[in-house]
């Protein structure tokens, strides 16, 4: 290969590495101090870009010069910093002590709110930004033209690295950040004003996100998908570097930048896959990233989030379950076509949510990418029917098999990790699947998906398909529920409660988690297969992050501590969504706000609250203290 070309290519890799580093350093600093993985970091980045395309042109009107451009960029970043500080004061400081899953979801709620706000304020169309004055020309390196602005970006990355180093080493604030990253309980015990430290950290993190966003405006047209696309990349950078480590983020950004710059030459379609594969490999070899350290809290005995006690169905429960089944059986007879359609969707989502709860509530495996297996099932069924001419029946049987196979493959790596790293890896694998389905247009139809996924003629009527879906979902749910009460489910719960103890009584913790992951993936795949036939089509939204989040919300809404909670949650969530979504342009804002409210005031969900009520009105058998 031409050496000049290699130099240019690696320089452009450096430029994107530089942007990535600026953004990722903010996320990693915030995580180090607060232990919260801030999903909304991508939204802050997007806000930085939108503010910059608004402010910078105004300033350039006054004086068309580079200092004015930079002033605009800095102003945008400062405003984002203030927004970040406000976010800490309003939301984050209320969720420092809730489980990781809730934190991730709450910050994702912010993502949803910001998305609708941005559309409301700036509209859904892309906005091209102004070029930077004095940096519009090209520089010739080995006779190849290279944009001056890209060189400037490389410089900014190095300046930010230097300034961060100075801040961390030479200022009291920096020392406190480093101390809190190592042991925040100790910092608190030493009498440091936590509130000030945390708000300040969020300001710094958000400022860096905003700066990263504002600096992009000459390179890319600002758009409403910037938040999700950057956050997955930044997650990868911080996870590979080690969460909380600024040097780690720098090294990881350099690696990712080069990987993208050269990967695009070799595998133009799957650079994203390469990036996620790198992350998977790094995590398997170094489970805490290149520069990360195991969390000091690991191994401490805390009550796990999820199922705490299993009780058999009482009379009341049997009556409720019986009535629910009768209502479902009667729905196609008495309901109109629309109700039957919604009914099928509720059944399918109930199975998907139940399979997710099997992982989270029983196994303590917090999957943030469960839509992957739902989507693989849907795509498997859809592609078998439309591309290979399969009938519905074998396609419905193969959908869970194929989804289970992928769950086994991904799960093999996933179950080696725990906590936030595990959640990140599930997200990464889900994004790989999403990227493949999105980019492999020839097979999957890309963004448009594939239409014509119809059931066999005998099941073509909605009513018959409803009964078919009911039979499949109900048997799968009963089978999974049975597994929860069987030794397998107990062993899975044992491994969650104390992996050390489980290991010391001969339970192969990894194997049992792997098995559970596969089983759960297969069940989600069955749900996906059923879904694709009910829709008659497949498309990438079935695998997207919002789908994973919807499933998580169903589980939480229903209540994570009860076995049937996710079923209630799926029914409630889908009915609400179906009712409200056509009525409002702000569904995402509504959903985001609801998630936050749920995390803050309703952490045990509907079924959890119901069982709390029944406990209150039932005479206590004997005074043995209440569960915490």
């Amino acid at each position, binding site marked *: 290969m031409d050496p000049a070309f290699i130099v240019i290519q690696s320089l452009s890799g450096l430029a994107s590495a530089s942007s990535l580093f600026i953004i990722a350093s903010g996320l990693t600093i915030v995580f180090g101090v607060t232990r919260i993985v801030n999903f909304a970091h991508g939204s802050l980045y997007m806000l930085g870009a939108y503010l910059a395309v608004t402010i910078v042109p105004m300033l350039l009107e006054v004086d068309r010069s580079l200092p004015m451009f930079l002033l605009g960029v800095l102003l945008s970043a400062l405003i984002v910093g203030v927004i970040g500080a406000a976010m800490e004061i309003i939301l984050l400081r209320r969720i420092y002590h809730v489980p990781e899953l809730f934190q991730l979801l709450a910050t994702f709620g912010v993502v949803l709110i910001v998305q609708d706000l941005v559309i409301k304020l700036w509209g859904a169309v892309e906005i091209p930004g102004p070029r930077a004055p004095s940096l519009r020309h090209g520089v010739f390196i080995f006779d190849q033209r290279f944009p001056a602005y890209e060189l400037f970006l490389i410089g900014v990355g190095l300046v930010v690295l230097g300034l961060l180093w100075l801040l961390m080493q030479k200022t009291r604030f920096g020392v406190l950040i480093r101390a809190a990253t190592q042991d925040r309980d100790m910092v608190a015990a030493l009498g440091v004003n936590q509130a000030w430290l945390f708000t300040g950290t969020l300001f710094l993190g958000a400022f860096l996100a905003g700066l990263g966003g504002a600096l992009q405006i000459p390179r890319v047209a600002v758009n409403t998908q910037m938040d999700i696309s950057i956050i997955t990349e930044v997650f990868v950078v911080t996870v590979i570097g080690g969460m909380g480590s600024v040097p780690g983020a720098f090294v990881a950004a350099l690696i990712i930048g080069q990987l993208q710059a050269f990967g695009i030459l070799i595998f133009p379609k799957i650079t994203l896959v390469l990036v996620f594969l790198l992350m998977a490999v790094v995590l398997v070899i170094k489970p805490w990233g290149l520069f990360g350290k195991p969390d000091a809290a690991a191994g401490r005995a805390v009550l796990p989030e999820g199922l705490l006690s299993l009780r058999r169905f009482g009379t009341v429960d049997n009556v409720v379950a019986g009535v629910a089944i009768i209502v479902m059986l009667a729905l196609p007879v008495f309901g109109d076509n629309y109700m039957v359609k919604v009914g099928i969707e509720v059944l399918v989502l109930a199975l998907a949510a139940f399979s997710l709860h099997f992982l989270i509530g029983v196994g303590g495996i917090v999957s943030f990418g469960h839509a992957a297996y739902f989507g693989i099932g849907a795509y498997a069924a859809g592609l078998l029917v439309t591309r290979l001419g399969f009938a519905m029946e074998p396609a419905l049987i193969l959908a869970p098999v194929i989804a289970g196979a992928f769950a086994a493959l991904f799960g093999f790596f996933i179950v080696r990790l725990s906590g936030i790293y595990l959640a990140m890896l599930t997200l990464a694998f889900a994004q790989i699947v999403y990227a493949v389905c999105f980019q492999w247009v020839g097979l999957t139809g890309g963004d448009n998906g594939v239409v014509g996924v119809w059931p066999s003629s005998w099941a073509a009527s909605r009513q018959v398909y409803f009964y078919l879906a009911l039979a499949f979902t109900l048997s799968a749910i009963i089978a999974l529920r049975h597994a929860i009460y069987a030794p397998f489910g107990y062993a899975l719960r044992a491994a969650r409660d104390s992996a050390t103890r489980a290991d010391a009584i*001969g339970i192969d913790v990894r194997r*049992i988690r792997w098995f559970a992951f596969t089983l759960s993936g297969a069940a989600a795949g069955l749900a996906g297969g059923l879904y694709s036939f009910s829709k008659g089509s497949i498309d990438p939204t079935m695998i997207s992050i919002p789908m994973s989040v919807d499933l998580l919300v169903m589980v939480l809404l229903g209540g994570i501590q009860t076995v049937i909670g996710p079923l209630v949650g799926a029914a409630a969530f889908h009915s609400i969504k179906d009712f409200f979504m056509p009525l409002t342009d702000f569904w995402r804002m509504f959903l985001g706000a609801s998630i936050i409210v749920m995390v803050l005031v309703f952490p045990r969900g509907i079924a959890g609250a119901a069982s709390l009520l029944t406990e209150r009105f039932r005479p206590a058998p004997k005074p043995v203290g209440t569960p915490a």
Partner: protein
Amino acid sequence: MTLLKVTGLNKRFGGVVAAKDVAFALEAGDILAIIGPNGAGKSTTFNMVSGQLRPDSGEVLLDGQPISGLAPREVWRRGIGRTFQIAQTFVSMSVAENVQMGLISWHDRIVTFGARAETLYRPEALRLLDLVGMRADADRPVRELAYGDVKRVELAIALASAPKLLLMDEPTAGMAPKERAQLMDITATIARQRKIGVLFTEHDMDAVFAHSDRILVLVRGEIIADGKPDEVRANARVKQVYLGEMGVAAAMRARRGRV
């Protein structure tokens, strides 16, 4: 045959020698305590026997079979049960279910879907709970118990696999003095009745001298004494090591008295 035979065990962490040519043996039904100052290598030795750590060199034989380097769950399968310095139980389960898990695993029924775990091996679990005096609390959630009782439950879990050897890492750490004596009494009784060898580390000298048949004194990774409690008590080298410790302890007490 000797139940546990350890020969020439070595382990270094960087420049620190945590175990140097450690060798000892344990007969069935005997109770052997490992004592020594902090950082003497007690836990290291212990973890090399139970499989948590792989020795740099040396051999651990259980009933004549080498077990060094095996994973903890394989070591368990060969007949070693253990308890932890900070009790490890399944906090979402009841007392009986905790013990049942041990039994289910011992009978190789973990990957079973056809039964309800709640009812499996319950009578056996209740018998084990009876043994440690926790039968009356069988259906309480284990997370509601006082710490001393949790330790007893942990002992019952460890006994579920009918072990030949019981490893107990600081069994009385974090317990009230009265509870300590009870737990050690129960352990000693069960060990003698069932011919189980017990290897334990301990900081509480009362527990050590009252309940062990033999004591091993480790200092900086090396065994400096190995004998009956009386012999160890009389050993000059041991006195020297522990006098230093006592001196520090006394100084601490005196200082606290003044404040």
